């Protein structure tokens, strides 16, 4: 992979802590929900990074922070190397145009009272000074690119199927020619036979426009098909990070291995090292001491209970946070 190309987006040490308050009038902070705790990654142009994890892992919070829907408690967001937090109004506007999103729920992501043409046109209306005619042309062009017909622009969202709505959502996301699109579970709410259509559409658009994607997904097969790099999150932290196939061929972290074994292959004869974890993901308010994963980890050692593991590089692009792989460890 070309490590010398400047990434479109770089996240450094991102933390998002939500206060837990008590009291009605004078609210005291009694604790913190550490939704995101020191997350770092970068996305090169034209590539897809997937954030994988179960609910409570913090991936949605990361996505929202990238979209500036949440303000980070700590950490940096670098857009082409420049600090987003230090942006002035016009630079922020520029950032916003360049970072768009497609959400999971094709039913809730569109205003049910607006026609499709208005929905897709809105980003242009709000952000550009194009004439009505120019906007109209652009909208029809976008709809065509996602496989919809011009006469469908007059319809309302509820007149389309789920898969078609996701296409509309993609069209809207492309309106401002963004460089990065955040995909939050883009196909999980769709029928299986439609998923492939939408995944192919997303890939084709990525190739055509050189788009980067930050994708949140839980289905590992989807992740493998779409991604160039994968980060596995657990309780607010990235526990393993690797390039596309590497993660699936050589998973290192016990949680990654458990996720892979839980990901049911569509093959009745598939034999995987069945790692069935016990217990559930703990609450992010009171994470376990040391390595957050140790209570459920089949390989937990004494050190895991006490000390949080540091990031270890295995190979040039494969990172893992686990005592099993830290320097000096005899396990391999």
């Amino acid at each position: 992979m070309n490590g010398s190309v400047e990434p479109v987006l770089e996240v450094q040490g991102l933390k998002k802590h939500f206060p837990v308050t008590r009291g009605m009038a004078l609210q005291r902070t009694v604790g913190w929900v550490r939704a995101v705790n020191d997350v770092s990654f970068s996305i090169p142009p034209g590539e897809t990074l997937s954030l994988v994890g179960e609910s409570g892992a913090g991936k949605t919070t990361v996505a929202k922070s990238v979209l500036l829907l949440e303000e980070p408690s700590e950490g940096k967001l670098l857009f082409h190397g420049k600090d987003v937090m230090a942006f002035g109004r016009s630079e922020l506007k520029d950032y916003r145009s360049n970072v768009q999103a497609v959400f999971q729920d094709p039913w809730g992501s569109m205003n049910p009272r607006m026609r499709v043409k208005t929905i897709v046109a809105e980003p242009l209306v709000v952000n550009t000074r194009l004439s009505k005619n120019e906007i109209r042309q652009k909208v029809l062009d976008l709809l065509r690119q996602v496989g919809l017909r011009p006469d469908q622009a007059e319809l309302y969202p509820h007149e389309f199927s789920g898969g078609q709505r996701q296409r509309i959502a993609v069209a809207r996301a492309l309106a401002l020619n963004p460089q990065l699109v955040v995909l939050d579970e883009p196909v999980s709410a769709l029928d299986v036979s439609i998923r492939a259509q939408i995944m192919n559409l997303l890939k084709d658009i990525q190739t055509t426009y050189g788009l980067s994607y930050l994708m949140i997904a839980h289905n590992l097969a989807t992740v493998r098909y779409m991604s160039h790099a994968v980060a596995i999150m657990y309780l607010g932290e990235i526990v393993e990070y690797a390039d596309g196939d590497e993660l699936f061929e050589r998973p290192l972290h016990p949680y990654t291995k458990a996720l892979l074994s839980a990901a049911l292959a569509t093959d009745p004869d598939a034999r995987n090292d069945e790692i069935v974890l016990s217990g559930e993901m703990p609450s992010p308010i009171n994470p376990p001491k040391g390595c957050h994963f140790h209570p459920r980890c089949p390989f937990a050692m004494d050190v895991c209970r006490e000390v949080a593991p540091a990031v270890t590089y295995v190979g040039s692009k494969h990172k893992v946070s686990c005592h099993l792989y830290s320097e000096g460890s005899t396990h391999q």
Partner: protein
Amino acid sequence: MQPGQPLLQVEDLRTYFYTRRGVVKAVDGVSFSLAPGETLGIVGESGSGKTITSLSLLRLVPQPAGKIVGGRILFEGVDLLQLSEAEMREYRGSKISMILQDPMASLNPVYSIGEQVAEPLRQHQRLSGRKLWDQVTEALRLLRIPSPRERLRNYPHQMSGGMRQRVVGGIAISCRPKLIIADEPTTALDATIQAQYLAHLKDLQRETNVAMIFVSHDMGVIARVCDRVAVMYAGTIVETAAVRELFKNPKHPYTIGLLNSMPRLDRKTERLASIEGQPPALLNLPPGCRFAPRCYAAIDRCHAEDPPRVDVSGDHFATCWRVDAHREEDAAIPSVVS
């Protein structure tokens, strides 16, 4: 019931919905059978009719719009569709139970879990006192809920999603039914919890020999859990086979398309083949095979006449004109790329 007789035999089941816009033939001629202790998977997407099929088995189709208009449901030789409502109630919860998708909606938030597991026991077996609570504890133990006796007084909101779904399983198994219908029971659960839950269901089956009908859209879950599979599309079953046979040797173009459109976990997929179009709206269906508009192998006959159910080999059936025509020649329809 005689030995060798299937536990459940569904023949030509038809459930229609009468709406202002017309008749929706949600289930239109569905037939399958289930042996004692067996797990049958019903796979389908939205509009396939899989959920309505499972509701029809218990005669819980939403009324007044929905009606079971034809067919027979033979459970241990008795046609459930001929029973009175009172007689049917005897079956529900005691001989046949159901697990639904959302555990939070299936459990009543104001009753303890012990109470809820006890309810079918009270209703059907008239148990009370010590005997009742022993059975309740046993039901929870069967679902591997740790320290069941201490948890009897817990409320649903005090438990996690996976735990709640196990309580729902406990309610289903409490009267030791012969059949449990599970409708997407793991869809709302996280991946690792799902794996746990399915493992527990398998344990449960081993211990009690209960038969299961597993309704899902997730082929991976079906592959893991089921002995046989029925694939549904737009209200009809398009293919039925033993699970291994279905995945290795699918015959119906829909099944083939479905399997081809799923990305693989074990290796990189270059390009996914997708099925064109979308599942049809069930109003005003065109004549002929319901899958024909999207089928890459469709011929003229497919658009005109309903295809017959073809015996591919022993226990493997497919409802398709192309399969009928080329029963001997496997080369006719392109199969799974493996």
